[in-house]
């Protein structure tokens, strides 16, 4: 993967020339270039969030690099990415200067496609064209998100297409690594996953960049992720966010689950000055289940925000959201989660749990679990809590001779475990456990 020809362009608003250059660089078919140009037009017609929108009221909008960036350059493998990619894997797509695109031979033979999105758009036009932008696009995006979604639809450079044919199960995880270097960079990515009926896959996506010492210009990342899960399929998706603290990272994810299918959205936030993910999944019927898991440790003046939507528009599905975070320094977390059960969503079971542990006086958390229930035969509950480390637990550990810092670390780890243990991919669970430890000041 090399730089786009427009990389390093001056800090001006994106133009049609940029879009054409990106499209030409990746040798894209005309329909895709036209789709990008149409998205740019939408971008120009839309406005940025004003801060009045219900899902943007709590986001610090001041100083966001929404218009002060140039297309991101691709550099070396970030040091923070080391160890994040498991060695036992079925495939890897890595966007850096010595990037790789590999897929296990066995999977390829069975018809699995795991390739850069531009390449897939050329080679598998019908498939990509049917699904690209079907679940996340500016028209569907919530108020305030639409312009970011349009921007990334016009200018994404790090794309992935992952296709698993009917009844094919990929045992080992697939990895997708996205990176950026340089100050005031704008990075836009697009991931499209299509899992046919009865198929199975695990995809771990890592977004990473090294901290830039003394950087005073923030960078902008917008990621778009679409997940189409066929009847009876199983798709486990894991997001590891390891951006440097110069990065303002947005993500918009949309998923649609077929009848009886299972899916997981796992998200771990260990970086970025601002992280705001908007995750919206429509759960299928008859035993379809969706797990939405979030784990984070906030430090410094980090702002970590989850906007989630569990939509049940058909009978007999279930979903569970668990977000657990510890907040240190002056960090702040917001969870704005909605369970929406329409009149068609009878026999649904849906739950939300949001728990925030405040480790310092400057930390704060606003959990907002929302229920919108239009069917009566449902089981629905939510719980939210904010509080400090339980002094009794601390006392217990300290009375056993454990020093206060270690005691706190142990308690926080125990607190996060319930969510970490449910994240996809054993290797990633180890990575997260280690990151939790390091973010709480423990040794590597």
């Amino acid at each position, binding site marked *: 993967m090399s730089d786009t020809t427009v990389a390093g362009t001056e800090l001006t608003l994106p133009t049609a020339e940029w879009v054409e250059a990106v499209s030409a660089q990746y040798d894209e078919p005309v329909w895709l270039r036209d789709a990008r140009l149409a998205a740019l037009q939408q971008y120009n017609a839309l406005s940025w969030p004003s801060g009045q929108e*219900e899902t943007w009221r709590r986001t610090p909008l001041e100083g966001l690099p929404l218009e002060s960036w140039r297309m991101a350059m691709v550099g070396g493998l970030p040091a923070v990415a080391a160890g994040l990619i498991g060695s036992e894997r079925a495939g890897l797509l890595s966007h850096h200067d010595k990037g790789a695109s590999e897929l296990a031979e066995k999977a390829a033979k069975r018809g699995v496609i795991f390739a850069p999105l531009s390449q897939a758009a050329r080679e598998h036009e019908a498939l990509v064209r049917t699904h690209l932008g079907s679940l996340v696009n500016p028209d569907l995006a919530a108020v305030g998100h639409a312009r970011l979604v349009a921007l990334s639809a016009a200018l994404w450079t790090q794309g992935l297409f992952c296709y698993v044919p009917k009844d094919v199960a990929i045992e080992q995880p697939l990895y997708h690594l996205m990176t950026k270097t340089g100050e005031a960079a704008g990075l836009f990515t697009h991931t499209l996953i299509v899992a046919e009926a009865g198929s199975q896959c695990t995809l771990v996506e890592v977004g990473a960049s090294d901290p830039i010492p003394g950087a005073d210009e923030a960078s902008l990342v917008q990621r778009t992720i679409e997940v189409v899960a066929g009847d009876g399929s199983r798709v486990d998706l894991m997001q590891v966010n390891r951006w440097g603290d110069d990065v303002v990272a947005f993500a918009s994810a949309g998923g649609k689950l077929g009848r009886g299918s299972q899916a997981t959205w796992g998200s771990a936030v260990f970086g970025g000055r601002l992280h705001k993910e908007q995750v919206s999944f429509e759960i299928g019927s008859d035993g379809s289940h969706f797990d939405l898991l979030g784990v984070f440790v906030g430090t410094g003046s980090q702002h970590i925000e989850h906007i989630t939507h569990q939509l049940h528009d058909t009978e007999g599905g279930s979903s569970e959201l668990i977000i657990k975070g510890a907040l240190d320094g002056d960090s702040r977390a917001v969870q704005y989660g909605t369970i929406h059960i329409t*009149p068609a969503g*009878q026999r649904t079971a849906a739950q939300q749990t949001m728990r*925030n542990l*405040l*480790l*310092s*006086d400057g*930390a*704060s*958390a*606003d*959990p*907002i*679990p*929302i*229920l*919108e*229930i*239009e*069917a*009566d*035969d*449902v*089981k*629905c*509950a*939510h*719980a*939210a*809590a*904010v*509080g*400090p480390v339980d002094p009794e637990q601390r006392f217990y550990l300290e009375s056993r001779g454990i020093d206060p810092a270690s005691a706190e670390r142990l308690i926080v780890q125990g607190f996060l475990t319930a969510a970490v243990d449910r994240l996809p991919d054993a290797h990633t669970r180890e990575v997260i456990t280690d990151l939790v430890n390091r973010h709480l000041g423990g040794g590597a």
Partner: protein
Amino acid sequence: MVTEERSHPDLQKPGVVKDDYQFGFHDDAEALVKLPKGLSAEVVNTISDLKNEPEWMRKLRLRALEHFHARPMPNWGGEIDIDFDDIHYFVRATDRDEESWDDVPEYIKDTYDKLGIPEAEKKGLLAGVGAQYDSEVVYHNIREDLEEKGVLFLSTDQALQEHEEIFKEHYSTIIPANDNKFAALNTAVWSGGSFIYVPKGVKVDVPLQAYFRINTENMGQFERTLIIADEGSEIHYVEGCTAPIYSSDSLHSAVVEIICKKGANVRYTTIQNWSNNVYNLVTKRAVAYENAVMTWVDGNLGSKLTMKYPAVYLMEPGAHGEVLSIASASGGQHQDAGAKMVHAAPNTTSVINSKSLAIDGGRTSYRGLVKIYEGAEGCKSNVRCDALMLDDKSRSDTYPTMEIDEKHVDITHEATVSKVGEEQLFYLMSRGLTEDESTKLIVNGFIEPIIKQLPMEYAVEMNRLVELQMEGSIG
């Protein structure tokens, strides 16, 4: 008397329980003063003139009118379709408020006789009664011994005339004129409501009570209530609201301000049973100082749309706030109710317990806020919302917000939405009860924790009102 209104298509939707609305009578009374429909500075000036108010109040009203015009309609909550030009902002039924029941004009007395107010007062169940008919209070009485102790219980208009100093000191300090669009409207055109002052250390042992009734079609009722509980005092205030069924919508937009000084204990109970064409858009807020206890008990059964979120601002250590509420919505109704607890001082505590029933296409929403300011250490807040859905046409929403800026706190929120359990039903029916009886029992059990907080006669009334609403949907 209401046969004509019943022919209105909206009121004939199957299952709508309008027919059971027992307060649906209206008096064919000619009002003494009825300002023409519409809202203007002229209307505001006329109201102020009619009431012979001091100049500062007129100015405040006019400023509030500007705030009202400047503010957009809320873009959240329920659907509000109000033509502000099609409302009577002031209707006077009698030319003064009476202290003896016998002096109240016959047609008004009739109305309240039907509600059973004089009996309750005679039986000594109440420490005092106020009754408001359209814009103004028509009757006010307080037990002699309380009056001797210095307790004031008057219409707000009368309080402004007779106790201007204490009135001015507190009025609009808790809910400023520009707080929200409907508080601004109230501040511009307010009329009636209760003013209560309880002196230091005085404990009023039985409730003070007020009834509010809208009798005029296309009427806006904007009563203003101000309660000041001085240090160590105790008071329980109960209000009931009714209106006849008209074919066009009415607006009730009250503002209630309560000040609980150090160690005071105030309980404010509302049984809101407006007819199903009243928009009930109310702002209620209390401040509680050191070790004071403020409790809102809120029953919302009537109205077309209610948007009401009683608030307690906990200003000093040891203050405690509670909101206990029941909302029930049947077809065509939306109860968007909730609570706000603002912890502005350390070691303050709050409890919100909300129960809602959605029946026959009704919609209930809980909307709440728990805010903990930085430095408010040792606060505890527990929020619990339970919703019961009685059929598949109804809808239940929960919109809780927590804003926690302090670490040393204990904040929890829990909510459930469920239907009447099949196992519970089966159990009761296997004991020989019919399905209807079983459902009613389960519902009664569901709301019981709140009901038992009500004074006896209200508990009975509340149970009956909930049963009436259910009869429209089951059986």
